[in-house]
């Protein structure tokens, strides 16, 4: 503990505080970003049954994930004050036809669970 305190002080005094975050030769930069693990489940509002193949995507982002056979999905996305998600049925009538839905997540913690029910088309 004492050594950690000394390290921070001396590192700061010698203007090397940025050295606490470094990249090794032939390695990557340290990951110092913030993200959120968003997990969830998508069901049919009509039947209560899970829906497979629903595309879940944050607004304005190339990331996307699809629900599995139990309607579950899970992905890490960039943390922000709020996160807008779009749930979209993109496989036509393969797993039934459902209307798209948007939701905005606020009060973010490092891990969030979302339950979504989609209306039939």
């Amino acid at each position, binding site marked *: 503990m004492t*050594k*950690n305190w*000394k*390290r921070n002080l*001396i*590192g700061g*005094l*010698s*203007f*090397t505080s*940025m*050295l606490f*975050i*470094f*990249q*090794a*030769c*032939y*390695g*990557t*930069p*340290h*990951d*110092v*970003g913030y*993200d959120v*693990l968003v997990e969830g489940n998508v069901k049919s509002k009509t039947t209560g049954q899970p829906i497979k193949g629903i595309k879940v995507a944050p607004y304005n982002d*190339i*990331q*996307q*994930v699809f629900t599995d056979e139990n309607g579950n999905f*899970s*992905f*890490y*996305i*960039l943390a922000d004050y709020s996160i807008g998600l779009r749930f979209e049925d993109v496989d036509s009538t393969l797993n039934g036809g459902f209307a798209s839905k948007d939701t905005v997540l606020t009060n973010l913690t490092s891990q969030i669970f979302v339950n979504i029910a989609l209306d039939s088309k």
Partner: protein
Amino acid sequence: MIRLINGALFRKFKQIETEIHELNYLFWECTTRCNLNCLHCGSDCAKDSKFQDMPFADFLAALDTIESKPAHFTVVLTGGEPLLRKDIETCGREIRKRGMRWSMVSNGLLYEKEMHNKLLNAGMGALTFSLDGLQENHNWLRNNKNSFAKVDLAIDLAVRSPRLNFDVVTCVNKRNIAELPDIYNYLLNKGVKAWRLFTIVPIGRATENEDLFLTDQQFKETLDFIANMREINQLDVKFSCEGFVGKYESKVRDSGFFCRAGINIGSILIDGSISACPNIDRSFAQGNIYKDNFYQIWQTKFEAFRNREWTKTGECNNCGDYKDCQGNGMHYWHGNRKNVLTCHNHKLKMYFWNKRKQI
């Protein structure tokens, strides 16, 4: 005066860091298979590696021995080419479940939109691509005519993801040194934020090709280029942490030279060996996950990394800059360890000495 005080404080800082030796950066050499056959490869990776990929469960068992995980502890997947493994996404998710971050070094050949999406979904937070020149020179060094086109697309994907702490690394050599300004402009136009430059270590296949190694003058020109670009400050350009560069130290990096191998950086290599950076001579291995407790080895061994007095030999013996350099990067000690493979500081001194002689 301020420089002297700052230098003394920095040496003290390094000493304390060494005593604490907090592990916060772990390489996992998850495969030695590679889909390229680069001219400069230090590990002689090949399409058909003599090693099987390490089963992920074996790596996880070693990872689970780590008792203290500081914030931003990062597991760096390296190879070979990590994307040749089919389970990278699963590996990433399991690492995140354990409260650690993960990142990857890739040649970009297999890095396409679907892969990018999968890796981001699995919580990848940092990424490095190798780019060793514009089309002709990159493809020459990478020994593949499609390599530039592939990494070009991969860079486009990476820069569009603000979540990623992303940079590009370039091995400077005789062929690409003249086009460094063009590479700079290319990266700037792409939207890349950070660029690290290396020289090539004379090991592995690299030893066979004289074109790969810079003359003293070219090395000095490379550092001048980095220093100038840092002045302009449009892109975070830096010289890698590979070696001590004397009076250029404050001009080409954010901070002074500090080889953290075995101090903050550990590795689990393809055969289970426990070491530091994967490019360090394998004879420095401190144990093996298949018979030792990884974290116990980290805590109790690594003497050669944490006390570098043994490097006071050969060229380093009686060197006036030893206290700041401490034997250069650990990956420059191979074979009988009687002399450092490359002394960057010496290259600079030789350049200036020869210049004075000409005058």
